[in-house]
């Protein structure tokens, strides 16, 4: 008989999540990932002023709010048939880069490191009940030091963001056309100087730290792989003069990379708490999560730093817990190099703002890869107001519920994992955190149509 493990709450993520895993002979034979919170943003947005979506949708998520300002801005620009200037794109992509750095630094040090490093138990926040800490004392002590030092560095990433974006979380800078304010010489040099110190930290601490962890927990190169289907909407790409600095919209399955086609995205809710009218329904018999099931070509995909690093050819060591974690850390370094190029190409003192008009009737979509992976916002405007809004987040891809007998991406990654101790199943938490789950983002409702591509978007 299999034994059932329930982890609730799964901590060190954004939002609330439960994992249920059935274990037989020390291996997981079935798993369910469950989003435990519902807010209903897509309902709230109906009837609001379309321009307000940029600041409003950021409130979906406290750790990656900039991601939503990017996707909503792109959706509005698409609805307005508005093409921003390259300077406008550089400016907002720099803000987006700051958000990547803040997220990756905090995810690695505050969310991941406590899985592998014994933090000082005299502080209640750091007490744990498992014993699987393997680093020699000296190395462990060093990582504890880096945990605390990283707080200054991630804070400074948000500080850079605020220099161009006003404040963080929930910035005011990203908007139609690029950003609200202008890049002045003093702002550019302030960002450059902060970015330099972040780069030093990434190269001297963060990258060595992840490889040390990988050395002592090397079986995690073989745990948590899952389907190995990878998807990216692209980001820092397709600049007129600079080309693609990071990754284009691509998908990877069966050892083949192909061009991403947005019309192949669908979303189902067979096992999510929504009825046939897409209304929340906590009584639905087979449902077990607030997270729906986005699919591409009807199959589940993994999104995030490993998908991007793989698709762009920067890192192709493998697909596993450790590869995902290493890819995220290496991506932090990649983002620094991209931001440097964008900063170099800024022309100070250019306003990218105009007086915009809300279209009476229009549709648009904004698809972009952000910290946790592929993020999509879809908008329909009618009578100058938001008539429909749909959000599919990266964590909805990674934490999707099953469709038919096909498990979601993270569920599949957990299945097959060894569990040494049924009472302290530390392996499962390590697998799920390698995806950097953001349940705050992932649980939504949408109205008007079961499939994404049933709405007509430009």
């Amino acid at each position, binding site marked *: 008989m299999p034994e059932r493990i*329930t*982890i*609730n*709450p*799964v*901590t*060190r993520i*954004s939002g*609330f999540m*439960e994992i249920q895993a059935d274990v037989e002979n020390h291996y997981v034979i079935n798993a369910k990932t469950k989003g435990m*919170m*519902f*807010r*209903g943003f897509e*309902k*709230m947005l109906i*009837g*609001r*002023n379309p*321009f*307000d979506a940029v*600041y*409003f949708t950021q*409130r*979906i*998520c*406290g750790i990656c*709010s900039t991601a939503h300002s990017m996707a909503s801005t792109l959706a509005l620009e698409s609805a307005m048939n508005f093409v921003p200037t390259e300077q406008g794109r550089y400016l907002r992509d720099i803000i987006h880069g700051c958000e990547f750095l803040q997220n990756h630094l*905090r995810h690695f040090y*505050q*969310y991941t490191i406590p899985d592998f490093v014994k933090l000082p138990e005299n*502080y*209640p*926040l*750091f007490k744990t*009940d498992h014993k699987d800490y393997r680093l020699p004392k000296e190395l462990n002590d060093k990582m504890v030091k880096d945990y605390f030092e990283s*707080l*200054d560095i991630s*804070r400074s990433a*948000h*500080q850079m963001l*605020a*220099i*161009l974006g*006003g*404040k963080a*979380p*929930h910035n*005011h*800078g990203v*908007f139609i056309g690029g950003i*609200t*304010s*202008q890049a002045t010489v003093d702002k550019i040099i302030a960002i450059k100087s902060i970015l330099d110190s972040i780069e030093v930290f990434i190269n001297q601490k963060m990258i060595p730290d992840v490889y040390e962890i990988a050395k002592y927990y090397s079986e995690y190169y073989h745990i948590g792989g899952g389907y190995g289907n990878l998807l990216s909407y692209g980001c820092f790409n397709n600049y007129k003069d600079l080309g693609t600095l990071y990754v284009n919209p691509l998908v990877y399955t069966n050892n083949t990379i192909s061009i991403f086609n947005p019309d192949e995205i669908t979303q189902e809710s067979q096992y999510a708490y929504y009825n046939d009218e897409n209304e*929340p329904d*906590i009584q639905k018999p087979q449902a077990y999560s607030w997270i729906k099931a986005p699919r591409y070509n009807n199959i589940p995909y993994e999104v995030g730093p490993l998908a991007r690093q793989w698709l762009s050819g920067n890192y192709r060591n493998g697909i596993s817990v450790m590869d995902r974690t290493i890819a995220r850390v290496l991506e932090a370094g990649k983002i620094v190099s991209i931001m440097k190029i964008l900063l170099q190409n800024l022309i100070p003192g250019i*306003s990218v*703002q105009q*007086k915009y008009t809300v279209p009476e009737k229009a549709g648009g979509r904004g698809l972009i890869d952000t910290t946790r992976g592929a993020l999509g916002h879809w908008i329909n405007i009618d009578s100058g107001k938001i008539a429909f809004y749909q959000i599919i987040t990266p964590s909805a891809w990674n934490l999707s519920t099953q469709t038919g007998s096909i498990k979601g991406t993270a569920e599949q990654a957990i299945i097959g994992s060894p569990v040494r101790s049924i009472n302290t199943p530390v392996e499962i938490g390590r697998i799920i955190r390698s995806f950097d789950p953001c349940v*705050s983002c992932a649980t939504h409702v949408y109205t008007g149509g079961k499939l994404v591509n049933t709405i007509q978007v430009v």
Partner: protein
Amino acid sequence: MDAADLRCPYQESRLKTTASLVDLVRGNLANGTLHKRNLVWLELNGCSGNIISLLNGQNPDFQYLITQMTNFIYSNSLIAAEGNYAMDQLFNVIGSDYILAAEGAVSLKDNGIYNIIGKNNGKPVTGLEAVKALGEGAAHVIAVGACAAHGGVSAARPNPTECFGIQNVLQKKAIKLPGCPCHPDWFMGTLAYLLLYGEPPLDNRDRPLMFYGTTIHDRCPRRSYFDRGIFAEKLGEETCMFKIGCRGPVTPTDCPIRQWNGHVNWPIGDDSPCIGCAQFGFPDAMEPFISYNTTRGG
């Protein structure tokens, strides 16, 4: 004349409120006249952006908060433990002396089932149950951010999960720190005051006067443009944002002097309007955030 002599002593002292309170806490902890107290950070129906904002705090920073200032018991985002062990740590605090900081709104629909914060003895615990149990047992309760203070964006129309500020389900007074997110200084300063003297002076809606006493408009560096009738017509202009929707006139916070993220910038400094994120009624009462046509509507 030295430039420092031109500074307004009132603004100066306001800006240093948090730092001076924390310095006093530091001193009193060191000389033994003050003991570390337990602090519980409870996340409810929201975006968990206030704990991220707290990590952005400087002087004191998060490390000082958890190692020197308090016994930081619980935060879903940061606690090393998970599952039962984490839940035990949370609920075992009841009966001891502790301060509760809650972020996110409390969802009342269907008895709170839309926000499960964990399982206790195999039974799902709703945010509603958790905030009631932990709130009534706390020495002080702080509602951190817009959602906890008054429902905020979680309660935006049509309020799909019937969200409210935590005060709606508590007998005990919750000190309210609205803001989306709450500025880390507002929280740290309030906490330091609680540790030193107990409840800080509050306005009639339970906001600490030291942070929420004066409107943004009254101290706005662009006030002279308003007085002379020079208004921005679009974002990105360095004049008064009133006609494109600035809610500074109705939002009482110290953003103009404190600013954000190590005091480097703030929304109006970013040539965009204040959207009233720290005023009751945000977001519905503050919309439209950006309007190119009139002062309100459209």
